[in-house]
C-alpha cells in the first residue's frame, strides 16, 4: 500500500526494455499504486509474466513484443499503447544487459552490443514517448541504471560506459524538457539479486564489502519508482538516486 499522495490511480505506465527482472518488479510496484501498465521488450515470456503481476492487482495491462533496438518498432509500440490507453503518463526504461570482461579482451562487437542493448532503447523510447508527453504537457520518465554509471568496477568498462550514457541522457533531457512538464530521473541500483546468494565467483568478498552486507532485492526499487512517478514530484528532475545498500556512500 502506498501513501495516498503517491497513488497512481488511473495513470498509464509503460515499462520498456529488456532486463532480467525489472519489468516484473517495476510493473508490480506501479500496478500496486494503481497504474495500468503496458510492457514492451523482446522477450515475450518475460513481459507476459510481468503482465500477470499487473492483472493480479486488478489493473489493465498490455504486452507488446518489441525489438527495442529498432526505432520503427518502438514507435509502433508506443502508438499502440496510446491507442489502447489514450495517453502515457509514466515511462520506465528498464534495460540491463550485463557483461564483464577485461577491457583489453573486449571485442568491438561486444562494445557495440552494450550500447545497442542498454542505451539505444532509451533513446528510442524517450523520442517516441517524449513526443506524446510533450503533447500532453506532462510526463514522468524514470531510467533504471546501475551505480556503475558513476563509478568504475574492474572488467565493467563497456557496461559502465553504456550506463553512464543513460545517466547523461537523463540529465540533458531534464534541461530540455523541464518546460514541457516532463520530469526525468534515474535510479542507480547497486548489487541486486532475487536470491540471497547467487553462487557467483568472489561473492563472499563482495558481500562482505557492501555496507548492508547483502544484495538488494529488485522489489526494493519499487517504492522509489512509484514516488518518482507520482504527482508529488513536479519539481524533482534530472537527478540520480541510489538504491544500493550504501555502496555509493562508502569510502
Amino acid at each position, binding site marked *: 500500500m502506498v501513501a495516498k499522495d503517491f497513488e497512481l490511480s488511473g495513470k498509464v505506465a509503460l515499462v520498456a526494455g*529488456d532486463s532480467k527482472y525489472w519489468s516484473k518488479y517495476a510493473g508490480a510496484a506501479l500496478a500496486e499504486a494503481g497504474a495500468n501498465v503496458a510492457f514492451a521488450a*523482446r*522477450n515475450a515470456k518475460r513481459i507476459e509474466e510481468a503482465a500477470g503481476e499487473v492483472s493480479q492487482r486488478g489493473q489493465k495491462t498490455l504486452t507488446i513484443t518489441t525489438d527495442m533496438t529498432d526505432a520503427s518498432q518502438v514507435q509502433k509500440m508506443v502508438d499502440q499503447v496510446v491507442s489502447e490507453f489514450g495517453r502515457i503518463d509514466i515511462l520506465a526504461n528498464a534495460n540491463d*544487459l*550485463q*557483461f*564483464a*570482461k*577485461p577491457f583489453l579482451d573486449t571485442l568491438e562487437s*561486444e562494445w557495440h*552490443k552494450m550500447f545497442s542493448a542498454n542505451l539505444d532503447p532509451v533513446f528510442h523510447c524517450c523520442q517516441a514517448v517524449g513526443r506524446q508527453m510533450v503533447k500532453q504537457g506532462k510526463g514522468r520518465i524514470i531510467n533504471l541504471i546501475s*551505480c*556503475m554509471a558513476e*563509478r*568504475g*568496477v*574492474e*572488467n*565493467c568498462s563497456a557496461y559502465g560506459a553504456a550506463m553512464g550514457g543513460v545517466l547523461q541522457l537523463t540529465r540533458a533531457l531534464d534541461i530540455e524538457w523541464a518546460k514541457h512538464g516532463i520530469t526525468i530521473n534515474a535510479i542507480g541500483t*547497486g548489487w541486486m539479486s532475487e536470491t540471497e546468494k547467487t553462487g*557467483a*565467483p*568472489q561473492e563472499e*568478498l*563482495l558481500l*562482505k*564489502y557492501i555496507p548492508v552486507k547483502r544484495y538488494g532485492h529488485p522489489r526494493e526499487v519499487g517504492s522509489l519508482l512509484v514516488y518518482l512517478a507520482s504527482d508529488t514530484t513536479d519539481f524533482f528532475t534530472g537527478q540520480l538516486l541510489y538504491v*544500493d545498500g*550504501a*555502496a*555509493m*556512500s*562508502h*569510502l
Partner: protein
Amino acid sequence: MASGNGTLQGKVVIVTGGGTGLGKMTALLMAKEGADVVVAARRVGAIEQTAQEVRDIGPRALAISTDVTDPSQVNNLVKRTIEEMGGLDVLVNNAGIVRGQARRPLWEVTDDEWRIGIDTNLSGTFYCCRAAIKHFVDQGHGKIINIASGNGMRGSRGDFMYGTAKAGVINFTRVLATTFAQDNIQVNCIAPGFVDVTQLQPEPRAGGMTRNAQYIPVGRFGVPEDIGHLALFLASDASDYITGGLFPNDGGGLAGGISPTGYAPVIAMEEE
C-alpha cells in the same frame, strides 16, 4: 637559489599545518619555485625546522606558532605575514586532521570532541580565509588552497567529525570561489586519499596490504609530493582560470569504491 623555474618568485605563501607531512612538503615545493613561505602550526620546533629548510632552499621564511582554532592567533598570523614579508598571495589551509577522528560509538562522543573536531578541520579554515581575503580583495588577487579529504566526499565508518568538517570545507571552497570570482581570487580544494606522511615505503600490493591500501586502485599510499605538487599547480599563474574546483588526489579510489579492490567479475553476454 631556489632550484626550480621561479614560477612563484616574489609570492608570499602561508601554509598552515606546515610543520609536518603534506604541509611541510607543500612549503618546500613552493619554496623551490621561489615562494617566500610563512609556516604556521602549533608546534614551534616543527615549524622552525620547515622554515629553516625553506631558507636552505633560498627564499625567505617565517615560522609563526598558530593554533588555527583561535581567531586572534589567526588574525595575528596574517597581520605579521603582511608586515614582515611585505604581502600575502597564497593561503594553503592544511591544518587539521589530528583531533578529528573519534572511531568510538557515536553516543560516547563528547560535546568537546565534536567541537574540537569541527573547529580544527572547518572553523580553522574559515578563520584563515576571513583573515586573508580582505587583503586579497584590496590587492586585486589571491589564491586559496583548502586541503579537504576523500572522507569529506564519502562516509568512512566511525569518522564523525573529521569527515563532516571536511565536507564543510569542500562546500565552503565553492561558496568562496563563487563569492570572490570577480575579485580575481581563486579558491580550490584538494581531497587527498590515504597519504603516508611518514614517507615509509608503501607496502607492495600483493600480500601484506594494510586495511586502507586495499581501497587504493593504484596499489600504494599517496606520498606528500602527490599533494604538494597539486598545491603548487593551484598556487601558480597556470591555474588563474580555475576556481571552485575539487581535486581528488587519491590513487583512483573515488572513481571506484563500490566494490573491493581485486573484485573483477566476468559475466558472459546473455543472448535472448
